[in-house]
Structures are given as structure tokens and as C-alpha cells.
């Protein structure tokens, strides 16, 4: 190894004789200004990551999502008994449109946010026959389904937002699998976008060669 070190020294000496190029000052200024802007916009992460435990965050996010879905499902199942004493559904555009107005856009609505108001028990102003209450519930469910269908048929921008949200709760390996699947299905635009997003999110992640071929070229 001493030989290698000796050779290395010689090459280093030669290399240092080459011009010591530097980036232009304008580029320096632009990068530093960007760094400052980012800090001003987002002063510090809410929870600083700690070394190898970074995988906790996607896992925790996934757990929260699963819990929210499970709770929603549970509440949906329990609903008939609860709504037996609930008031009739309020007119469309009054009560239900209020929380929606606080949300930035339909694409940004998460499942747990959307169902949260429904989970709250309503004040029992007037008792209604269970059948009528169920009918109200059915109407509400129908509206939810329509909303969901509308979201599913939303333009590509909304779909990519959904993909972005998905990426937030995935591990890097899961993200890559999803991208490979998109590629295999011939959804190259989405795969390209997801890959670019992945690169931004995990700039230092080394993608294994075999995986890279799958996510970039859709090879099996």
C-alpha cells in the first residue's frame, strides 16, 4: 500500500499544478442567496433527524395514515347507531362546505382531514327515525363517493400531487418500486416526474444498478 501512497503523491502533485478553477462570483452569490431564502422561509425542521433513525419518519407517517384510515372505517361501520339520534343532514353548501373552504385545494386534502368532521358526534338537537337518518347518511355517502370519483378523474396535476403525498410516507425502496411499476406500465411521464421527485428528496441515495435500469428504462 506504501507504493500506492507514493504514486498517489506524485499524481497529486501533478494534479495541483493544474489551474485551480473556481465558480464565477455571480454563481456563488446566487447559491448563497438561495440558501438564505430557504432558511428564511423554513427556519428549522420541526423534528431534527437523528442519524440512521431517519426511517422512523416515513414509518411514523405511514402509521398515522393507517390509523386514520382504520378509524374512518371503524366510524363508518358504527355510524348507523350514532346517527340514529343525529339531526338531519344540513343543507349542502352550509355546514359541509365550511370546512372545505379552509382547505387549499381538493388535491391537497388528505383522507383523514376529509373524514375528521364526520367522526365528531353531532349535538342531538332532535331525534329522527333511524331509517330517515340512514337515508341522510346514504345521501352523504353518495356525495362523498361523488367527490371521490371527481378526485379520481382529476387532471394529471392532482394525480401527481397524490403521488407526491404517497412518496412522503414511503421508504426510498418503496418509492423506487412504485416508479418501476409506473415504468413497467408505460406511464413514463409519471415515472419521470416521480423519479425527479425522488432525486430531490433523496439526493444522496445510491440506487442499485439493477433497480436503476428498472426505474429508468423499465427493464425487468
Amino acid at each position, binding site marked *: 500500500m506504501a507504493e500506492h501512497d507514493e504514486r498517489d503523491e506524485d499524481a497529486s502533485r501533478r494534479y495541483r499544478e493544474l489551474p485551480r478553477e473556481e465558480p464565477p462570483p455571480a454563481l456563488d452569490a446566487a*447559491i448563497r442567496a*438561495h440558501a438564505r431564502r430557504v*432558511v428564511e422561509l423554513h427556519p428549522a425542521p420541526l423534528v431534527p433527524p437523528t*442519524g440512521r433513525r431517519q426511517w422512523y419518519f416515513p414509518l411514523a407517517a405511514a402509521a398515522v395514515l393507517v390509523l386514520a384510515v382504520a378509524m374512518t372505517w371503524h366510524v363508518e361501520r358504527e355510524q348507523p347507531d350514532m346517527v340514529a339520534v343525529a339531526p338531519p343532514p344540513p343543507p349542502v353548501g352550509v355546514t359541509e362546505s365550511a370546512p372545505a373552504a379552509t382547505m387549499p385545494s381538493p388535491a391537497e386534502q388528505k383522507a383523514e382531514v376529509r373524514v375528521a368532521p364526520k367522526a365528531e358526534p353531532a349535538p342531538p338537537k332532535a331525534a329522527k327515525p333511524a331509517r330517515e337518518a340512514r337515508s341522510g347518511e346514504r345521501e352523504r355517502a353518495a356525495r362523498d363517493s361523488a367527490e371521490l370519483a371527481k378526485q379520481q378523474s382529476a387532471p394529471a396535476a392532482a394525480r401527481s400531487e397524490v403521488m407526491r403525498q404517497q412518496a412522503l410516507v414511503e421508504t426510498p425502496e418503496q418509492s423506487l418500486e412504485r416508479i418501476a411499476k409506473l415504468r413497467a406500465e408505460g406511464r413514463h411521464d409519471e415515472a419521470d416526474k416521480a423519479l425527479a421527485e425522488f*432525486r430531490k*428528496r433523496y439526493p444522496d441515495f445510491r440506487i442499485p444498478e439493477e433497480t436503476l435500469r428498472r426505474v429508468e428504462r423499465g427493464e425487468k
Partner: protein
Amino acid sequence: MEATDEQLMLAYRDGDAVAFDQLYARHKGRLFRYVLRGVKGRAVAEELYQEIWIRVIEARARYAPSARFTTWLFTIAHNRLVDHWRKKELAVVPAGDDADEVPAGADEAADPARRLEGRQAVARFAAALDALPRAQREAFLLHEEGGLTAPEIAAATGSDPEAVKSRLRYAWQKLKQATDG
């Protein structure tokens, strides 16, 4: 005592923009030369160089010092260059048979201020460096500019440490042949 790179990056992560300035000043030249000598053309190099720093900045919230900052920085740079090479479908750089293959520093050599002793040897070395196969040249540059050891280069590029040692050895041999000849 001067703060380490890792301390500066942590400070920047936590909102200290001045820490970034210090960190940037420490690494800008090395990173720039690594990029400049890894791609064709200064304009492309500047664009990639900026993108690499943007990735560093955007990844700040997730930064945790599990390795040396330099290794992390050059891993990001390597990934960006790999993306670039793939996009351009650049194969292994041919051995100086392309007119565009003028070393990035060759125009500097034309500067009278730099026409000092050993000008020819320097030019030969630059040409030989430019003519190295990409993997060998990158290993050499990561070692020289990034100050990375063979295992660190292996970690940054996802290569086998023995393969990296071998690349460094071959790179040196070719550079030596070019400059001695």
C-alpha cells in the same frame, strides 16, 4: 476552534445561514473542479454545480451526520453527474480523439499568467486526465478534490472498495505514462 463541516451543516439545518456561507466557501472550489472536469463544457458544469448545491440546500432538513460531510456532498454530486451522463448517454470518454475533448482547464493554460514552468507537462497531464475512462477519472477526482479515501469513494459511488483502489491505481499509471512520455 473552527467548526467542523458537520457542525456547520447542522447549524445551517437549524436555520443559521451564515454557517452555510462558511461551508460553501470551504467546498466551492473543490466541488466546482470535480464537476468541471467530469463533464464537457463550462456552462454545463456551472449548471450542474448549482443544481448540486440546490440539492444540498433542499436536503438540509433531513441532514444527519452519519458520515463525513464531504462524503455526503460528493455523493450528491456523483448522483447528479450520473444523472447527467445517463441523460446525455455519454459513454466512456474516448482517448482524446474528439475535438471537444479539450481539457476544461486548457483555456486557462493560454493565460499568460499561467505560462510558467512545466506548462507542457501540465497540459499533457490535463489531457491524460481528460482521456481517462470516466470511472477512473471520477475516482481520481473524488480523491484529489473531495479528499475521499478509497472506502469513502466506494460509499459515494456505490462501488466495491477494491474496484475503487484498482481504478485509482490505473488512473495513476495512465497519468504517469502520459506525463513521463
